[in-house]
């Protein structure tokens, strides 16, 4: 099987590092990665515990296909309790770090306790040691990466690291691996820093040969790759334009949240979308996009590698940013752009570089800045707080400045590091926070796309598009087109997407494969890799089990059905333009049916029948 069957348990309080076998019974019920690590979390922590206290645990976890030649088989996730939402957190990342964990012989690393001074974990195959991070603390991810590479003289090591934002307590800090891939959402980086853990550096040379049926696996993986290559989205669209192709689509359908979701279309969208990234600029004739890039084993290669115009005000005196680095993905571009009203692609790229350099979730950062801009507009925040900066919607200067101070946790950057919910509460206008369960929205307005509103409201990690990407159906026609303005039928659609995604996230694969793959393409790859008779039906059942387990974790953490809601703005202030003009999100029409389909009570509690049906823990 594609399991190394080995977990590393690192107790940061005592400094002990022990190996233990992977619980294979749980692997059969929860597959891997998101599902399996959450099963461990449920077993090992009290959901009511302080997310930033030593009793929270942080789990780096792989799936059965991580490190294999299955396309996109390089993913890992970070699971813990979130300080941003107080709900379960699971953030998924690509790059090469996850595969390297496998090559060092590890399925999972569980961090517990808290070190008395900054440490990092060094793994070289079977050797694992905690080393002092005194020389790394206070450094950005990029600087720390350089220092560790020099110290260990290993250019091929893979590094996951937190930046200064996490050290300063920013509540949406990310863990960045391979310099510009991130376990981005829900503040998993904040939890890592709260344990005085700066980084994990891994070098594995063992390879991965333990597949259940190697011949069947290669044939299933090859069949999967053929499907991806022949599909227009995964074979052509994503490599050429990346996720950023959506900017103009979502603006056209009138669901591009603009200026803290006050509006639903952005006049500057075409300046910051995927097409604009390919336009030669005046100064040097080069486009923003240098090339696309791929994570480990990925045959899609949606990643963006970009440069900033050297004559742009943000970098003209900073040659250290005249580099090729991780460029704008749609979510980041939206949060840094339309949501703040800024349409300067170089300013957006600079802010995005800073999010990577110091490990901040660009969605939460951009959305929080957008809320701050509205607070500034209403007079609740003034230049007294910002130290003189005019925090106006549309100001590229304000965006670049805000990214700099938030990345380092300086001055007003501390306030921006609180996230939108706590910031708006602090300044007396909680209604201006565009969040669910304390997590900021992604790039789709639920007034123009009804189903995604239900997906946001019920997401187990707070507002998130990746927990049930109904945009595929409602806007993009994958697998079938549904009407984005009609709430009918959406509860079933949301549930199906949520369950399927839970399974994909637990396999070690990238969810972008599902633009071409159905579960019938995925199950044979999982089944050939590991024991357990993984059929499409079993994958869906496991997905649903995971969803219910996460829900029960959140209930025990104190969340209820009352948290399954959207900000008042989206329920009462109608869209101002485009096809959704005059519409609000009809959550009240969808939620009761959704609870029913889930087998939950009318107030959103998992019933004992559902609990038993899935054999849930506790």
């Amino acid at each position, binding site marked *: 099987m594609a399991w190394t069957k080995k977990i590393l348990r690192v107790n940061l309080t005592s400094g002990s590092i022990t190996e233990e076998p992977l619980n294979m019974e749980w692997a059969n019920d929860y597959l891997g990665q998101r599902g399996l690590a959450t099963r461990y979390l449920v077993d090992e922590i009290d959901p009511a515990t302080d997310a930033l206290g030593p009793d929270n645990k942080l789990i780096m976890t792989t799936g059965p296909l991580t490190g294999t030649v299955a396309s996109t088989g390089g993913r890992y996730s970070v699971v813990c309790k979130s300080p941003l939402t107080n709900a379960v957190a699971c953030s998924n990342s690509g790059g090469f770090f996850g595969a390297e964990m496998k090559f060092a012989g590890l399925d999972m690393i569980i961090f517990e306790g808290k070190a008395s001074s900054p440490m990092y974990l060094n793994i070289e195959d079977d050797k694992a040691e905690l080393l002092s991070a005194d020389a790394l603390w206070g450094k950005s991810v990029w600087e720390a990466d350089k220092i560790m590479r020099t110290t260990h003289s290993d250019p091929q090591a893979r590094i996951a690291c937190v930046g200064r934002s996490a050290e300063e307590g920013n509540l949406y800090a990310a863990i960045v691996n391979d310099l510009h891939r991130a376990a981005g959402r829900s503040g998993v980086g904040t939890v890592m820093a709260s344990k005085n853990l700066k980084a994990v550096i891994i070098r594995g040379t063992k390879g991965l040969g333990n597949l259940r049926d190697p011949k069947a696996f290669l044939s299933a993986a090859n069949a999967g790759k053929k499907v991806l290559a022949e*599909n*227009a*989205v995964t074979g*052509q*669209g*994503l490599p*050429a*334009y*990346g*996720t*950023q*192709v*959506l900017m*103009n*689509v979502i603006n*056209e*359908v*009138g669901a591009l949240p603009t200026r803290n979701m006050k509006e639903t279309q952005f006049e500057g969208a*075409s300046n910051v979308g*995927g*097409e*604009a990234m390919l*336009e030669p600029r005046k100064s040097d004739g080069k486009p923003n996009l240098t090339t696309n890039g791929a994570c480990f084993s990925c045959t899609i290669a*949606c990643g963006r590698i970009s440069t900033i115009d050297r004559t742009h005000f943000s970098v003209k005196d900073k040659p250290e940013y005249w580099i090729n680095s991780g460029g704008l*993905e*749609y*979510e980041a571009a939206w949060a840094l752009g339309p949501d703040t009203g800024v349409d300067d692609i170089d300013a957006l790229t600079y802010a995005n570089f800073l999010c990577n350099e110091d490990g901040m979730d660009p969605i939460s950062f951009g959305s929080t800045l957008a809320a701050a801009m509205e607070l500034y507009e209403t007079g609740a925040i003034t230049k007294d707080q910002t130290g003189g900066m005019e925090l106006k919607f549309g100001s590229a200067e304000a965006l670049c400045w805000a990214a700099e101070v938030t990345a380092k946790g300086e001055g007003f950057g501390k306030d921006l590091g609180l996230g939108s919910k706590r910031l708006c509460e602090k300044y007396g206008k909680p209604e201006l926070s565009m969040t669910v369960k304390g997590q900021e929205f992604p790039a789709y307005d639920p007034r123009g796309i009804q189903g995604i509103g239900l997906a946001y409201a019920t997401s187990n990690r707070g507002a998130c*598009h*990746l927990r049930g*990407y109904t*945009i*595929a159906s409602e*806007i*993009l*026609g*994958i697998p079938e*087109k549904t*009407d984005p303005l009609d709430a009918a039928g959406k509860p079933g659609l949301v549930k199906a997407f949520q369950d399927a995604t839970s399974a994909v996230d637990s396999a070690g694969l990238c*969810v*972008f494969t599902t*633009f071409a793959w159905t579960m019938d393409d995925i199950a044979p790859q999982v089944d050939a890799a590991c024991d357990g008779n993984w059929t499409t039906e079993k994958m869906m059942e496991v997905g649903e089990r995971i969803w219910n387990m996460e829900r029960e974790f959140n209930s025990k953490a104190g969340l209820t059905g009352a948290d399954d809601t959207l900000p008042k703005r989206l329920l009462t202030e109608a869209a101002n333009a*485009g*096809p959704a003009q005059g519409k609000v999100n009809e959550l009240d029409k969808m939620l009761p049916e959704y609870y029913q389909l889930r087998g939950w009570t009318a107030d959103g509690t998992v019933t004992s029948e559902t609990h038993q049906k899935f054999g849930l823990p506790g």
Partner: protein
Amino acid sequence: MKITFKLFATLGDLLPANAVRNIASIDIEPDASLNDIIDRYQVPRELAHLVLINGVFVCDTDRDQKGQLKEGDVLAIWPPVAGG
């Protein structure tokens, strides 16, 4: 009559010379169907995946209907695309 015509992603090169970025103003017969316009600009029909009039999707079985467009409408077309 005049409408605004937008072609995005890989289809952008098929726009007429007066286009600015992905947008052109074009003259059409009042009873032109969407497929008439799609064919006139040599957009391969299988690549006319997302077809929107004023932001509202028109499914491929309705694209031969005459008279769906009125003066000043926006017709926007994408090949199969996705993101996240």
